[in-house]
């Protein structure tokens, strides 16, 4: 079947099977940033934005994306680059497998314009597992980034 969506601001027509998951479709259509770390919606690696909200694309049927706006990290390149600078300053970037997903959740948070304490932030990002960093450096980097963005 065919569905029409907007990905990173561009209209896309995806040719899919009804049971196909969005993570797989996006990968198939060369959005390389979309990767998977599990298959139980537990790790956050595959996070994308659907109409601005973070969603695990490994559990989202592509068919449901008809008419929706999808954002992958390729669509927020400049933001991601600036976040990466803060990650670099804090030494928060290690293997990076968790990073694009985090960048999207952080971007959604920024758009929401809510202010967050460190503790809120730790709870907000609880769906993003990271096995490398120990989290604290990431949290610091994200706080700096959100502070700058204001």
């Amino acid at each position, binding site marked *: 079947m065919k569905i029409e969506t907007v990905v990173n601001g561009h209209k896309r027509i995806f040719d899919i099977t009804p049971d196909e998951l969005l993570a797989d479709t996006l990968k198939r259509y060369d959005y390389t940033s979309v*990767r998977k770390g599990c298959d139980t919606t537990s790790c956050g690696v595959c996070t994308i934005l659907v109409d601005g909200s973070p969603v695990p694309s490994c559990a989202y049927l592509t068919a449901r994306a008809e008419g929706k706006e999808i954002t992958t990290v390729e669509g927020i390149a400049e933001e991601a680059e600036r976040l990466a600078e803060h990650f670099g300053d804090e030494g928060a970037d290690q293997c990076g497998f968790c990073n694009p997903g985090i960048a999207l959740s952080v971007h959604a948070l920024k758009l929401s314009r809510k202010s967050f304490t460190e503790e809120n932030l730790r709870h907000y990002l609880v769906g993003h597992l990271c096995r490398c960093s120990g989290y604290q450096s990431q949290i610091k980097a994200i706080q700096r980034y959100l502070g700058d963005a204001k």
Partner: protein
Amino acid sequence: MKKTKTVNQKVRSIDGKGIMMGRAAYTDDFAPKAALVIKVLRSPHAFARIKRIDKSKAEALPGVEIVLTHEDFPRNPFTRAGQGYPEPSPHDKFALDDHVRYVGDEIACVAAHDEKTAEAALKLIEVDYEVKEPVLDFEKAKGNESVIHAEESIHEMFPIGFDPEKNVAAAYHMEVDDVEKRLSESEVTIESSFYTQAQAHTALEPHTVNARIDYLNRLVIYSSTQTPFHVRRILSQALEIPLNRIRVIKPRVGGGFGGKQAIHGEMLAAMVTMKTKKPSRLTYTRKEVFEATYSRHPMRIDMRLGATKDGRITAIDCYGLSDTGAYGEHALTVFMVTGSKVLPLYNKVDAVRFHGDIVYTNRMSSGAFRGYGAVQGNYALESAIDMLAEKLGMDPLALRQKNMIAEGESSPIFEIMGEGTAGTAMNMESCKLDYCVKRGMELIGYKDKYPRQEIGKNKLRSVGMAIAMQGSGIPYIDMGAATIKLNDDGFYNLLVGATDIGQGSDTILAQIAAEELGVDVEKMVVYSSDTDLTPFDAGAYASSTTYVSGNAVWKAAKTMKERLIAEAARSLGVEPEDIEFQGTSFKNKKDDEELTLSDLSNTLFYNDDQKQLSVTESYYGTKSPPPFMAGFVEIEIDKETGEYEVIDYVSVVDCGVTINPKLAQGQIEGGVVQGLGMAMTEDVKIAANGKLITADFLNYKIPTGKDIRKLTTEFAESYEKSGPYGAKSVGEIGIDTPPAAIANAVYNALGVRIKSLPVTPEKILSALKEKNGKHHMMGMRSHDGRNL
């Protein structure tokens, strides 16, 4: 130390932006679109012989390209462990075999044009099993009637105590002086057994491989591996493909922690592509990663300590029983590290013994895991030290300070124990453990907080600590090499075999080269870990990279500098001694005439006595200077429920000079949190039939961002003369202290000693119950009158 511009400075990782922006980087990002998808049929039985396997129906399914069973592979035993050669692990594994030895062991694989077809085909493979009696309890493995490895042709590469008829993969024994005698003479002794669990690595990138045949008709493997050169060697040996026909490329790796220090899907992908001549790809599902890669070796450690009344530790006896699971990968070497990188912490003993067996069982294979046996040993020893302190009536810190290793000292263990073989004598040229302990005390507020404070009706806060050491590479065994190549316009390529698995080695190696050559890091373009294009390196394990690969890079940079000075002198018509090297330019000291690096390189490329400047240097350690660390934890614990939380984890680390302080901090903090996971929640569990219970992130809990409130990390000022710019390695040490520190903190809070990991509220409660029961029976209260 002379002033540095790049080393020990704030430098951002060289690859962080591209990764955050989602650019193609990891193994699967490079799989050809048309690649066949490989799926693996795995054993439902813990132990069985395959009587008959029929793949005809699966092969007949439209869309299936090939199905491979053990009949399709040469029968060459090998070890999946990526280690020095000859390997100290037994060759006890076949790519596919007619026996399966754990639930999840590979039986066959299907390569099809899409995932669904491959999965459907798996169900069409018919297998008849002769189910055998599995050995699941590692304490009953040795000499069990059920023999896990009875196949012919499996062997050890050199004597490691391999005795498969008894289910023993390896055994070890060493003794300094006479331990029994010294213990019997000791005024105070303690004795206790400790159990450590299987821990899963859970790198977020699953094990991934893809294979293709290139236009030169060579097999090209992309793999998320920690050891590309070992992968090439093992593939060649097992599949009988000449080494020169294989290229292994390691792209960005999404975490390793030891779990990728081995062959996993590579054998299957290589064979599929060799047979079909088509590209193939294999990404493990998360369940497969949990079920069929590696875990940490579970162990029982029996620890006996002896001391004089005034607190001099006189003897340590440590027996270990290690569970290597179905295959003996890293069996002996992990076990030896349990002794060799733990027991020298207390180097003033009169006698020390370390011995034990590493046994086969029918559970998933154990393998390399950050800390590599030292975590297990550290938990046992550092728990036992607190127990001894209590019996001596001493502060546990004072006991440590009196007995622990110090700068300039040694331990006989270094010479006796290496990894699989004898070790190397060495003195501690850099050891700031004493500072680490003192500074850690200050940072956690030990004086005020030890052992505990009441902070509410049911809540206590307490502190606990442990000290640790690790190593910096494997001396005389593992080599790293680096090539530096000058380009026109005066920038360089740095080609290293060293394997960046996310720890940032590409960045720190670039820093070392850039520092020596006096250029910015951006002028050092790094390419790593490609068996065709980069020089050799043993790989990312044993805390090797900073020290071993770093020294190789440093040597190469120094040689390049000499070559540049010679060329500049020739160009300026003076002697090399007359040249002042300034990195981006060369000055003739006599007349201040300057030649820029850019001009020199352009001339060398296009105009005068043209040549390519390129140098390759290699390094192997002649010792393995240990990094040291003191870890302190403050916990808040609920007396009623046994539930506790980490308030702060203080790490003070001596890893020599930190090449990149922020990345070094990342290594420590990542290690500490992984160690806290092991201490508090993580536990690979199997059911009575050998089936894995913890097969996903819902059942296997790793720490999340809200689980640990605060990490405090500092580095001691330290300089290791033999390291690049004074550095030692730092990849593993962070994981060592949390298990003992947590157990000690729980004891300091509630007076119960948890002797098996993880330290869970259930174990704490039942220990409390037992303790209170005893007290009631004797009509006693705890010594300080607390109502526990």
